[in-house]
């Protein structure tokens, strides 16, 4: 196989995984909103979903009703789908050849023919997760500022409890974004460490 064909296959694989992550996250979050909306309707009594209904600010047409659950599914599918694509593209561009090192080592050591197990690059996943969360915070805060409801956004302002310096303003969102990036980066690394530990432990067990 020529290098050109191999590079084409790599690009196809990256495109396929981007679409796949987009679909999987879109479906997962869409389903989540759909289920939570129905739970809210079931347990909410006369005023269901006092807080969940605030999603209508970002999901036009959404309400905590059975019909609104479908609208919520659509918007959550769209947002999470785009987020999934962004996450994968940042991850794959940051990780470079790191995730393939384990696979390469397996091939060289054992001439492995079975499907290998994926390993996660902690640094790349942390950066991708951090960048995605920053993007979402800045964009959602900007939306509140643009629509002129920043002063009334009491619930969004509560994020300042977790992100010191955050306010519902462009500058505040940038300050909050720094904290959010730091936390998301650490969580991304934690996810990668736990995942890689489990896969290595299982590989060692198989080797014994």
């Amino acid at each position: 196989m020529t290098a050109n064909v191999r590079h084409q296959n790599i690009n196809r694989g990256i495109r396929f995984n981007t679409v796949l992550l987009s679909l999987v996250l879109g479906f997962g979050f869409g389903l989540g909103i759909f289920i939570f909306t129905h739970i809210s309707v079931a347990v909410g009594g006369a005023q269901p979903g006092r807080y969940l209904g605030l999603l209508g600010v970002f999901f036009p047409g959404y309400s905590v009703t059975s019909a609104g659950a479908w609208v919520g599914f659509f918007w959550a599918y769209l947002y999470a789908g785009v987020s999934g694509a962004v996450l994968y593209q940042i991850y794959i561009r940051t990780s470079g050849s790191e995730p393939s090192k384990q696979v390469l080592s397996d091939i060289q050591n054992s001439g492995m023919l079975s499907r290998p197990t994926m390993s996660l690059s902690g640094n790349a996943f942390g950066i991708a997760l951090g960048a995605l969360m920053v993007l979402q915070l800045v964009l959602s805060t900007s939306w509140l500022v643009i629509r002129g409801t920043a002063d009334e956004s009491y619930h969004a302002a509560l994020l300042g409890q977790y992100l010191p310096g955050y306010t519902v303003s462009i500058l505040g969102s940038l300050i909050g974004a720094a904290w959010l990036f730091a936390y998301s980066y650490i969580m991304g690394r934690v996810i990668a460490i736990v995942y890689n530990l489990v896969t290595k432990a299982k590989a060692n067990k198989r080797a014994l």
Partner: protein
Amino acid sequence: MAEILDFQEPEPKDDQADAALVMSLFARMDHLGMALAFGVAVGITFCLATAILLIKGGSADAVVGYNLGTVSAFLPGYSVSWIGSLVGLAYGVLGGMVFGFGFALLWNFAHVVAVGIVILKADWFDLA
């Protein structure tokens, strides 16, 4: 894809690195690993979110912590208290594990289907 998976013949180092990159793109995601990883991350996040409010002086009755406390509508037994933070940790671990496991399941299923289609197509072209 059938060719990509064939590593029996010795290849130059660059080709092997490229092949490994393709293999890593279609590598299997470990269900247990992904479930535990997301379980730990979501659990810690939920526990910390509660603990931070408690350290700042919030309780279910005060302004701080009131909004997070309403999560109990979905998670029975949860409250903005130290015991509630442990309940939140348990819910977070459980929710994260379900998410991680489901995510890995869908990811692997889609890859198996995609790789299967590519191999079948390659076989059909070979037969033609």
